[in-house]
């Protein structure tokens, strides 16, 4: 399919369009918040706290009188940054491991990597995340590491699974015959062929990362105040839910819509990039 054709197909995919629009809205909000927010999120105004949404504060104010719209914009930075870096860690370590395991199929290396993966999967992830932040103290960095670790086996498995059948293909065999080493073959021939799959999985892990960050900061283990984060906004809203429901609604919907957007985009991308499914479609 030509690039133009791919673009047309992308526009036809309802999932992709809606998903990208949702995700883009939050990305733009996050970007904008670097330069401008309606209000300063570190300034407290106890006198105007817990105000319902109005023309002055579109999303209302929180228990310290901070503007919730501004906090959601800045909070998007945190969510996106944590999730992106966590996925980056997962890919950066997981993909080479997966490639190596596939290249040395059946070897001790392969066995070690795969059993290591199983082992990481066997650990209860949230508990380990809590332990990591207990050891190193709560911070954005440690939330990233905690989420990132559990992304490694996901990408390692996916890469190995996708790479294994490729190794039996003719063009790989001819590359081997021409004397290319396994590392070079992996980088030059295998990696480009699994990229689509990685992009699709990356989008999904990205959305899971946002949910995980929200859960961690909800239990107080994410980025520290005064930097806003969606999860902590929800935690703060808990006891006020009956008198100031807007405090719970807006961050909740922010998480929901971002994750939804990314999942839809992931689905759309899979439909678009996975030829097996694309061809099967009527």
């Amino acid at each position, binding site marked *: 399919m030509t690039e133009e054709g791919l673009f047309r197909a992308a526009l036809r995919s309802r999932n992709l369009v809606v998903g990208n629009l949702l995700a883009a809205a939050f990305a733009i909000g996050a970007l904008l918040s670097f330069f401008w927010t309606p209000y300063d999120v570190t300034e407290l105004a106890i006198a105007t706290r817990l105000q319902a949404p109005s023309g002055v504060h579109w999303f209302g104010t929180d228990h310290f009188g901070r503007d919730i719209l501004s906090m959601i914009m800045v909070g998007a930075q945190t969510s996106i940054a944590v999730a992106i870096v966590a996925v980056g860690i997962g890919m950066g370590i997981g993909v080479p491991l997966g490639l190596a395991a596939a290249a040395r199929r059946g070897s001790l290396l392969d066995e070690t990597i795969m059993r290591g993966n199983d082992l990481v999967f066997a650990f209860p992830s949230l508990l380990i995340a809590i332990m990591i932040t207990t050891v190193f103290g709560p911070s954005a960095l440690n939330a990233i590491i905690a989420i990132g670790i559990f992304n490694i086996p996901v990408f390692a498995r996916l890469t190995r699974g996708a790479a294994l059948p490729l190794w039996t293909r003719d063009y790989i065999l001819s590359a081997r015959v021409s004397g290319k080493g396994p590392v070079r073959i992996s980088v030059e021939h295998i990696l480009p062929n699994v990229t689509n799959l990685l992009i699709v999985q990356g989008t999904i892990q990205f959305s899971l990362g946002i949910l995980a960050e929200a859960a961690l900061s*909800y*239990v107080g283990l994410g980025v520290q105040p005064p930097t806003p984060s969606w999860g902590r906004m929800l935690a703060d809203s808990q006891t006020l839910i009956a008198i100031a429901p807007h405090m719970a609604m807006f961050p909740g919907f922010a998480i*929901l819509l971002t994750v939804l957007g990314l999942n839809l985009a992931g689905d759309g991308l899979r439909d678009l990039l996975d030829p097996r499914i694309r061809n099967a479609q009527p």
Partner: protein
Amino acid sequence: MLRYTVKRLGSLLASLVVASLVIFACIEVVPGDPASFMLGINAQPDTVAALREELGLNRAPHERYIAWVSGLVTGDFGTSYTYRSPVSEIVVERLAISLPLAIYALSLTILVAFPVGILAATRRGSLTDISVMATTQLGVAIPNFWFALLMVLVFAVNLRWFSAGGFPGWDEGFLAAVKALTLPAIALALPQASILARVMRSSLLDTLSEDYIRTARAKGLTARQALRRHALRNALIPVLTIIGLQFSFLLAGAIIIENVFFLPGLGRLVFQAISQRDLIVVESVVMLLVFAVIIVNFLVDLAYAWVDPRLRSRT
């Protein structure tokens, strides 16, 4: 098969040893002294020292590791620092809630996901399919602690159909206990059911497009007959794998939901134990959970290998 089993058993043991080392090392570096924490800010140094001695914290790390592991092997999980009763006893108490909750949530998940997934797959592209896909997307995207909060607000505080949380205990009657677990089970089941319904749908679509289904149809079976006799059974393999994963996740992963509904389950036990530095509880329970998952994986692998001999040559 025997050779494969022995080999697999070897790597199982290696995994367990590595897991125990990793867990022990994590616990070793956790800052904060259990004895100081228990005795508070007015404790005198000699009091703290006396307690450390009693808890066995003054021994060298390798001695404690060996003591811990040899205890595990003989079924002795140690004695909780804070509760001062055997960890196994505490775990059994907590499992009396976590296990039923996980089973309840998983039953709800299956009860919803199977029909919905099958319906969506058989009516692919229809309005039903589209709305199922949209709803399940929402179900996956909702943070479940937020959903739980909203349910408490509506069903416990406003409508008062359920109590807001807590667990009356099984001796208060089966129905009372089940009622107390209902909201938490729904909160846990929502994302899992959404995931499972999607897996069910795509797995069924895959099998429906396989040749033997086409053959069956060509032989004159109706779509429904083909589905029931052939497709469903084959589509269940990936579905069962997911259910296995979900069950082990539900057993330990309900921490946040247990907190929202103040249920004394296994997840909350570990969460509390971490902040109270009841390290022996943390390491033994985490080890137990890891052990359970590894064993399940091992059995699943054996089952697969038994069914499909090609897999045995993989390793």
